[in-house]
């Protein structure tokens, strides 16, 4: 096995780790208003009204809703924005 092959494999493994999709999850809390949560989903995530309402209701009834999946940096940015609106949001590594 050549050194080049080892390095290539490690780089590939690192890249794969970075590529793992990350989920943005919004959790229910009793304080935020349904209309407010819908407005925030539309603004931050660019959802249509129908999609925003659907996710808001999922948060309300199921306690959480996965609102976005993708690369980590962008997921972190979404969570930061959602915290700015005082929504309870977390970042989760997607299960593959």
């Amino acid at each position, binding site marked *: 096995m050549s050194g080049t092959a080892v390095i290539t494999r490690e780089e590939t493994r690192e890249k794969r780790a970075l590529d793992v999709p990350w989920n943005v999850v919004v959790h229910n*809390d*009793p*304080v*935020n*208003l349904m*209309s*407010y949560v819908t*407005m925030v989903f539309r603004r931050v995530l660019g959802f249509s009204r129908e999609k925003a309402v659907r996710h808001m209701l999922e948060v309300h009834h199921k306690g959480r809703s996965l609102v976005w999946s993708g690369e980590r940096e962008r997921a*972190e940015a979404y*969570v*930061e924005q959602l*915290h*700015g*609106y*005082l929504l*309870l*949001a*977390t*970042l*989760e*590594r997607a299960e593959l």
Partner: protein
Amino acid sequence: MRLTRQSPEAWQLQDIPPFFAVMLADLPRLAALHGEARERLYPDPVAADGAGDGLLSDWREHVVPGLERLFATSREIVARDIAAMDAGAESARLAIPGKNIDAWLNALNQARLVIAGRNGFLEADLDSREAPDLSAARGVDLLRLHFYAHLQEVLVGAAG
């Protein structure tokens, strides 16, 4: 109490009863009492068993200060609007520029989270149809929370 549009960029809250004008005036002070609600206002971005690669410490070092500034700015904007409230003996009027509505939504949410946090209000408390017991501080806080919720609902409508 009603919110009317004075121009494309200006709203006015009219016919505010004196009792509620006092609650409005108290909003910026109350919204700043983050103490017991701090964990809710600045939640961790991952669950306890989350990323575990320094994200949490980076978040607390870099993101939380930005959120603190954002929340403080919202309270300052709201405080300036409230300072200009026209309070008469019968009712008050309050001008809310359209560009300040987001700050109002944010400050109202801060205050509502603070009130819920310091009283330990649960969904059942907030959904209860019983009139709050205004002889107790907890009951006054519940009324205050509902009043701020009503105002927030109206402003969400204005924000479109």
